[in-house]
């Protein structure tokens, strides 16, 4: 009888403890986005911070996703009130310069903030190499299923969301994603030149 009882106790407790143990390995803040693999939501947003050097875009210029087709796009949502954005700012700014002249467009999207504060923040942080656009009413942020800032989206040359990164980016993540997306884009370009009919080769598989 005692064996039976302890058997029942173990059979009840083990699954419960197992479930809790599994739950502890998961980050409740990490909610998978349905966007990767899908076409990136389009946008047309006005530049409020121009960026520097060859990456510069005039203030007031409209940046459209449609115009960026054929380029790998790094879309970084940020705000001046966001602490974690300070951690990644210098890195993103440096990486954008590193990838300047390549087939990559870095852009910042201001989230729930006002352009004046955004500009003040940029000068406080020592400048931003790539342009930033304003997103009034967080329309584009909602379209991208944003939870908070910073969040960074990597779009492939076909304008699809390839990857979403939550929190400050790391050099490894950016290098790895950009290099693979650029390689996939170059491969696709080469295939289109030599074999225009080779549509069954998806660039995502080159990763």
């Amino acid at each position: 009888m005692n064996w039976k009882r302890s058997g029942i106790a173990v059979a009840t407790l083990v699954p419960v403890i197992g479930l809790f143990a599994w739950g502890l390995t998961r980050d409740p803040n990490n909610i998978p986005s349905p966007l990767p693999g899908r076409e990136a939501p389009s946008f047309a947003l006005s530049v409020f911070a121009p960026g520097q050097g060859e990456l510069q875009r005039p203030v007031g210029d409209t940046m459209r996703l449609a115009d960026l087709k054929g380029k790998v796009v790094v879309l970084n949502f940020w705000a001046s009130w966001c602490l974690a954005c300070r951690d990644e700012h210098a890195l993103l700014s440096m990486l954008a310069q590193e990838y300047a002249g390549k087939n990559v467009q870095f852009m910042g999207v201001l989230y729930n903030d006002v352009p004046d504060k955004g500009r003040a923040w940029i000068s406080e942080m020592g400048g931003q190499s790539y342009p930033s656009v304003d997103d009034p009413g967080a329309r584009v942020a909602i379209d991208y299923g944003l939870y908070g800032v910073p969040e960074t989206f990597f779009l492939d040359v076909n304008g699809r969301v390839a990857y979403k990164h939550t929190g400050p980016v790391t050099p490894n993540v950016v290098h790895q994603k950009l290099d693979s997306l650029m390689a996939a884009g170059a491969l696709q370009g080469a295939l289109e030149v030599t074999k225009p009919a080779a549509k069954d080769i998806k660039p995502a598989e080159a990763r």
Partner: protein
Amino acid sequence: MTGMRGFRGAARAVLAALSLVAATAVAQAPDLPAAPKSAPQDSGALRVKVQGTLTDAQKNDPKLEDKTKTVASELRCPVCQGLSIQDSPSELSQQMRTVVKEQLASGKSEQEVKDYFISKYGEWILLEPQPHGFNLFIYALPAALILGGAGLIVLLVRRWTTAGVTAGAGPDDNE
């Protein structure tokens, strides 16, 4: 079906109580990552500009307001803990409510508006999981446990009482 609805009602009441607790917790939390502490002063002007797609008649339409409330109550605020965008005072929730209202005003059905948010945030955005597939487990489990528990009690009571009768109300043979 009424049993399911009753359970869902009870679950909703529990959720409401929990979200109240969460709301106070959120209100006390000093530094939420996505809730702008220094709320932009001129964001009002900003929002007016964005809300431009709604006509004055639509803004004051009580029917549209009711529909917006219904949909907004079912959508989860992404920057809160267990709050709907209807109940949350956060900036993002307000903006999401505006999106809900605009989409409803443009002729989308309530389900289509919810589908839009599901396509952006996943099913997670729904406060109440949709009763299909694996989710059915959540709805079926409490009923199964209650039925199983009741069955177990009936079984045990029956065994104890018959054991008592056959043993002549003597002490249990376990002891």
